[in-house]
C-alpha cells in the first residue's frame, strides 16, 4: 500500500462497513463522527433523548446511524444507511450495512459503490463464519482495500497476543481471497482507542489509527486506463437555430481517457468515427477520464442511440448472448431455473433466460455446492444466462461498470439480483 502525503485537493473516499449487531459497527461510526467533531449539537441532543427513552445507561453512539423508527426500536440496522463526514484531507461517504447473514444483499449493495471495506471483528470471538462472509463479499465486489478492525480490545485487556492470533488467521483468509491490500488495527470503538486518537492502552501497536489510515490510503479510481469505454445515456439534439446540426452523445466515461481526434468504434454497430469535440455546458474540453459526465460529438453522422457504447483502442468488449456470472439473489421469491428475467446494464436492457446454475457458494466456509443449487434470497451463485440479443461487456474484474448488471422481475419490477460477469 502506498501512503500519500497530504493532498492539496480534497478527494472522496467511499467505504462500506460490515460487522454484526454486536461487533460495534455503529459504535465505530458514531465514534468516528464524534471524535472528528462531525456530530452536531442537535444530533447529539437527539441521541441523548433517544437513549433515555430506550433506557440506555451510557451514551449510545449507535443511535446516530439508525434512521428508521423500527431500527431504533429494535436496535438493529435494516437497510443501508449513508453517512457523510469530512476532515481537512478527505471527504468520506460511509455505506453502513447490516452484517447478519439475512442481510447479505444489503452488504452487496453497500459494497457495490465502495472503494474500501471496513470489517469488524470482536476480539473475544476472533474470526467467525461471518468474518469470512464479509471478506468474501468484499472480494466478490472487487473491493481491493480492506481494513480489519479488531474491536473490543478493552474486553481482552488490550492484549497483543489476542490481536496477533486473529491477525494471522485473517492473513490466511486474505491470501485465499486474493485481496490486494489488507490492514489490521486493534481498536476499542466504545472508548475510542486507535479510532481517531492513538491508544494509550496498546503501546505495542505501532501502526496507524483508523482515521489516519482512511485519510491517507491511496485508491485507484481509474482502475485500468487502457480500457476505453463510454456509455451513451441519451442523445442531445437541441434543434435550435444556434445549434441546428448539433448531435451530442451524453454519457459517463466508464473507463480510460478520451480526447478530441481519437478514433472510436461504436457498439453494437461496429461503425467507426473520430471524436469531434467533448462538451460541458458551453465549454469544449481537451480530455475526459473515467468517472466524468460529458457530451461527445463525432465527425461522422452515424446512427447512435441510448445503450450504445463508444470504445477505443485494441481491447474491445466481448460480444455474446451467452454470459457467465456470479450473482447475489436479493428477492424473497427464489430464482426460477429456466426463468425469464430482464437484465439492465450500461443504460441498456435485454431479456434473458437462466440457463444453468454451476454452483452455489457456501459463503460461510467458501466451499462450492454443486448439489443443492436452488437459489434463495441472499444466496451467491455462479450461473449462465442467455440474452435475447447479443450484448457487449467486459469481465467485472476488468471493468466494474461494463461488467455488472442487475436482474429485474418483469412481473413485479423489483430488482431481484446483482450480477458480476465472470
Amino acid at each position, binding site marked *: 500500500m502506498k501512503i500519500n502525503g497530504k493532498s492539496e*485537493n*480534497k*478527494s*472522496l473516499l467511499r467505504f462500506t462497513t460490515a460487522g454484526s449487531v454486536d461487533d460495534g459497527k455503529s459504535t465505530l461510526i458514531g465514534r468516528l463522527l464524534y471524535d472528528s467533531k462531525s456530530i*452536531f*449539537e*442537535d*444530533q447529539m441532543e437527539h441521541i441523548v433523548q*433517544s437513549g433515555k427513552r430506550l433506557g440506555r445507561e451510557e451514551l449510545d453512539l449507535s443511535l446516530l*446511524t*439508525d*434512521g*428508521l*423508527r*423500527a431500527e*431504533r426500536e429494535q436496535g438493529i440496522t*435494516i*437497510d443501508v444507511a*449513508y*453517512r*457523510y463526514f*469530512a476532515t481537512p484531507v*478527505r*471527504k468520506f*461517504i460511509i455505506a453502513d450495512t447490516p452484517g447478519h447473514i439475512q442481510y447479505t444483499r*444489503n452488504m*452487496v*449493495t453497500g459494497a*457495490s*459503490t465502495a472503494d474500501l471495506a471496513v470489517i469488524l471483528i470482536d476480539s473475544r470471538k476472533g474470526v467467525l463464519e461471518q468474518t469470512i462472509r464479509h471478506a468474501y463479499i468484499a472480494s466478490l465486489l472487487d473491493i481491493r482495500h480492506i481494513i480489519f478492525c479488531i474491536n473490543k480490545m478493552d474486553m481482552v485487556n488490550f492484549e497483543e497476543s489476542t490481536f496477533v492470533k486473529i491477525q494471522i488467521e485473517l492473513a490466511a483468509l486474505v491470501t485465499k481471497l486474493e485481496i490486494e491490500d489488507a490492514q489490521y488495527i486493534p481498536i476499542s470503538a466504545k472508548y475510542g482507542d486507535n479510532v481517531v486518537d492513538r491508544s494509550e492502552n496498546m503501546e505495542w501497536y505501532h501502526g496507524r489509527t483508523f482515521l489516519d489510515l482512511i485519510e491517507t490510503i491511496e485508491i485507484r479510481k481509474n482502475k485500468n486506463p487502457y480500457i476505453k469505454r463510454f456509455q451513451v*445515456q*441519451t442523445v*442531445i*439534439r*437541441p434543434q*435550435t437555430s444556434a*445549434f441546428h446540426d*448539433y448531435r*451530442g452523445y*451524453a*454519457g*459517463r466515461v466508464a473507463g480510460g481517457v478520451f480526447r478530441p481526434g481519437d478514433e472510436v468504434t461504436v457498439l453494437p454497430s461496429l461503425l467507426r468515427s473520430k471524436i469531434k469535440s467533448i*462538451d*460541458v*455546458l458551453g465549454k469544449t474540453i481537451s480530455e475526459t477520464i473515467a*468517472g*466524468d*459526465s460529458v*457530451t461527445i460529438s463525432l465527425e461522422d453522422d452515424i446512427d447512435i442511440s441510448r445503450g450504445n457504447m463508444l470504445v477505443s483502442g485494441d481491447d474491445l468488449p466481448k460480444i455474446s448472448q451467452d454470459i457467465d456470472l456470479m450473482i447475489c439473489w436479493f428477492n424473497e421469491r427464489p430464482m426460477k431455473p429456466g426463468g425469464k428475467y*430482464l437484465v439492465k*446494464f450500461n*443504460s441498456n436492457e435485454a431479456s434473458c433466460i437462466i440457463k444453468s446454475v454451476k454452483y452455489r457458494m457456501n459463503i460461510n466456509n467458501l466451499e462450492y455446492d454443486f448439489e443443492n443449487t436452488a437459489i434463495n434470497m441472499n444466496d451467491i451463485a455462479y450461473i449462465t444466462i442467455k440474452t435475447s440479443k447479443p450484448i457487449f461487456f467486459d469481465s467485472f474484474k476488468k471493468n*466494474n461498470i461494463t461488467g*455488472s448488471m*442487475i436482474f*429485474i422481475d418483469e412481473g413485479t*419490477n*423489483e*430488482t431481484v439480483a*446483482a450480477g458480476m460477469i465472470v
Partner: protein
Amino acid sequence: MKTQINISDEHLKELEAEAIFVMREVAAQFENKVLLFSGGKDSIVLVHLARKAFWPAKIPFSLMHIDTGHNFEETLKFRDDLAKEFGAELIVKYVQDSIDNGRVTEEQGVNASRNKAQSITLLDAIEELKIDVAIGGGRRDEEKARAKERFFSHRNEFGQWDPKNQRPELWNIFNGRKNQGEHFRVFPISNWTELDVWQYILNENIKLPDLYYTHKRKIFSRNGVYLAWAPFMQLKPNEKVFETDVRCRTIGDITCTGVTLSKADSLEEIIAEIAATRVTERGGRYDDKRSEAAMEDRKKEGYF
C-alpha cells in the same frame, strides 16, 4: 471581485458527474418529468446541474413549485426569473386550492404550518398531470430518514414510500420500472452535504436569492429557533418581534424555516460560517422538531 477559492474540487467533480448521470437516466427512463423547485438553494443547484447535463438542449423537465402561500416574497420573483432565463416551463400548484376544495384541512393554532399539507397538493398534481417522475433536491445528510433514501425512490399508486421495502441500488444501474399510476422520486444530489452544495455554488458562480445573504428582518424566537415574522403568523404571549441581521440557511415555507443570526454577505463568508457551525441545517427546521420520526412519517405520506 474576490479571488475564487477552489475547495476540494476533486470530490465536487465526482459528485457533479454522479448527479448529471442520474439526471440523464431520468430523462431517458421516464415520460412526464418535473423538477420540484422550491426556490431554495438545493433546487437551484438541481437546475444548474440539469443545464449542464443537457446543454446545448433545453432542460427536458418542467419546474414544479408547490406553493404554500406562505412564502418569502423574494423567492417567487427569483423562481419566475429563473424559469424565464432558462426557458423552462413552470407549473405552480397551490396548497390554498387544496384547502378551498376540501382536500386539506388546515392546521390551527400558533404552530400551524402548511408544510405537511404540501404532500397532498403535490400528490394531487402528480395524479392530475400524470407525472411519472419528480426530481427533488433531498440529500441524505439532511435527516436520518433521508439517509435511507435511494437515488431512484419508488412510490406506490398512493404516492407512499415504503422505507423497509426499497429496491436495492447497485453500482450506477438505476431501475425506474413501475406500473401504471406509480411514480418515482429521484434525488440526484443524494450524496452531497450542505457544505458541498455551498462550495459548488461558489465554484460554479450560481446566482441565489438575496435571502441567503445577510439582511435586516423582523424575527421572533420560538423553542430556540428564530423564525421570520409574517403578518399571518400567530405569536404566543411571551414572543416578541424584533429586527436584526439574519440570513436563511434553508428556504422553505416561512412558518417553519428558521433564520440564522448572521452578517455574512458573501459566499466565502457563508461557507466559513457553515464550516464552523455546530448545528445541522435542519436544526432550524421547525417541521422536523415535531417528533423523533417527523420526517420519516411525512415521507411515507408522500412528502418531498
